[in-house]
């Protein structure tokens, strides 16, 4: 396999680094070399966050080159769009369809785009744009949206957008959460395979 490049975009507080860690750890468990570039500090306070993951036989740069992403995971649709340029005609965008409106929209009287507009704008940067109900499902099954990241990785695996094994991914999910949350996370994770 050639290098696999992922960009995960979202809003500070959505569990992007946890999601990134689960993917990176699984990639390592499957024998790949991995680099994951994280962002810490101020932007974790509800700012725009991007995390890069690259895995393959031997990896150097921790950052994905513009236009070279295989998969862009948007935990928030506008953040997916913000990172459009990592995509090209072979990229799949997997986006949670649950908007989190940035305050600047209210302060400067802007409009938050419709999901169709986001999908349309992503066309020149993608092979396919897939919207999923991650936050909604997480809310329904776990009582809050926090577990949406778990749904997203489930969706990426079930749709074969991520060359990682389901059992190993779940093993690594368990590695980062407290035992009392295993069950509900398993529910959310499995829900992504049911659709």
């Amino acid at each position: 396999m050639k290098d696999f490049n992922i960009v995960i975009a979202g809003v500070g507080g959505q569990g992007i680094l946890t999601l990134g860690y689960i993917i990176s750890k699984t990639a390592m468990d499957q024998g790949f070399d991995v680099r994951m570039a994280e962002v810490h500090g101020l932007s974790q306070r509800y700012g725009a966050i991007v995390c890069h993951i690259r895995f393959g036989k031997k990896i150097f740069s921790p950052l994905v080159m513009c236009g070279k992403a295989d998969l862009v995971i948007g935990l928030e649709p506008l953040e997916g769009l913000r990172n459009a340029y990592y995509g090209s005609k072979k990229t799949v965008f997997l986006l949670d369809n649950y908007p989190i409106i940035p305050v600047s929209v209210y302060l400067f009287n802007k409009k938050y785009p419709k999901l169709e507009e986001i999908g349309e704008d992503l066309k020149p940067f993608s092979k396919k744009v897939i919207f999923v109900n991650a936050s909604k499902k997480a809310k329904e099954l776990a009582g809050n949206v926090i577990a949406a990241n778990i749904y997203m990785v489930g969706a990426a695996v079930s749709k074969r957008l991520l060359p990682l094994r389901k059992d190993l991914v779940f093993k690594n999910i368990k590695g980062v959460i407290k035992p009392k949350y295993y069950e509900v996370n398993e529910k959310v994770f499995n829900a992504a395979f049911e659709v």
Partner: protein
Amino acid sequence: MVRELLSPEVGKKLILLGNEAIVRGSLEAGVRFVSTYPGTPASEIGDRFAVIAKEAGIYFEYSTNEKVAMEAAAGASFAGLKSLVAMKHFGINVASDSLLPIAYVGTRGGMVVIVADDPSGWSSAQSEQDSRYYPRMGHIPLLEPSNPQECKEVTKFAFELSKQFEIPVIIRTTTRVAHTRSPVTFGQITKIDGKGRFIKDLERYNTLPPNVIALHEKIVEKNEKIRDFFEQSELNFIVNKKKSKFGIITSGVSFNYVVDALDELGIKIPVLKLTTTHPLPRKKIIDFLKLLKSVLIVEELEPVLEKDIKVIAQEEKLKIEIRGKNLVPRAGELTPEKVLLAISKFLNKKPSFNFDLHLKKFKRVDVSRRFPVMCPGCPYRPAFYAVKEAAGEEVVLGGDIGCYMLGIFPPANAADFILNMGAGEGVIHGINKASDQKTIAFIGDSTFFHAGIPALMNMVFNKSNPLVIILDNLTTAMTGHQPHPGTGITGIGEKTRTIVIEDMVKACGANVKVVDPYNIQEMISAVKESLKSKETSVIVARRECRLLFLRKAKKADIKLNKFQINPKRCNKCGICLERFGCPAIYKDEKGFYINEELCNGCGVCSQICPSKAIEVKK
């Protein structure tokens, strides 16, 4: 998970941050003493030691600032222990006053200084400082790893080097090294017991002239020996070694971008990867340059290597074209595509990918900025709101470094400048003296201990009357909730004496009032009152960081109130959203709402709403 860093299992592979790999490397080198002041992108080094130090039998502290941390680590090294001190780039500015003489007199036990630069300012304001100038100013060896595994190896090497040459060694990382995660293979941990001992030796530790001149000569000599040592080091290596018209010299994270760019272009030219970047392995560089007609230096930020290499080439009278910052951008962090473009231009090749065209495909919808915001329930928001209500728009507001930097964004607009730690007070004093304007300086609790006390004393001493508002949220919030002298707890969780901020302020001779910023009316009157004062006055706006409070509440199973907007009472004035701006509040065509998931139950919005429309949700 953090405790896995202590695993005795040689050959174990974990996915670690560059910072965590530095922690592991220090353990393998036998570190005994660690000090730091929290600063991203270096903070995880201290945070991991805070968790494992006791079990590892290591001394660890969060010091009050980087200068003190540097001195503490030097003291431990003078007493014969291996010591580590970690800081972000600006920390070394604060600590440099100590660092230079420490290097002159030399260390004993081995002392490693970690400095993490932050090109593009992912977690910093202030400047895009390139800390590679410090080693050059202070005659201090410098090592620059490119990835987490190298972070670990280089740390071990640095301790040996420091011990052997009796000089502190700087390891400089950047965000994309410190905050990159990748598999790291473990080696053997070195355990050393017993106390250190300071051996008196005035000839060595006396920096008074004329001894200082002798020390200067000695450190220059030491540097030449270290240069020879670096010539042999396998940490510097050549990829694609052969005679070629073109070649590249690079270091740190940029090396990775160079490898990928050449791969992308399908070209093999020689690349010299330097890890020991001061003093430079001169012979190695000369031999490399002799293979080439033209060389490109790929480095982030300033042309540091470029200038040094130009000097070497000139001294050796080499006929070679040296390019660097005329092709590689100087401002902003490097990215794979920036490096690809620079190398393409250097080689006169068309890149396989047209980035400009690619970006042009994007335009139609407006992607509104998403700047970070203070959390729902953050005590800073009401403090800023109260200041605006009490003092209006005319007053000059000095900002400072911490979560409250976010006050610079609308709707708070609570800073007219933000420079560096403590500068809110320091600069506002100058403005106060130079003008007739009303002046307010904000400073956080941890920052007050770090750099605020001398500036406050200066105000009192020199009779100026700004209002200083100490935003005391009882933690060092922005870098990850580390304790500080006002918290009564040390870095390893032991109880200690609390240094009470208002006592400190009184001792400095200023008037002081302690107010809970959740009480908006009280906060507004305190500000109004204090602004009238002819002397330096201080308000300590004290309320625990909401994130910290939530964590405690969760542990103790305390249920928080959630607030809601009663649509019957709301007259849609918009104050709660557009002036106060709690991120839990939103609106649509029909009205104003509170997102229950985001509301952290502080209740301040209900005090602010003029229509009394915000109430506890039952």
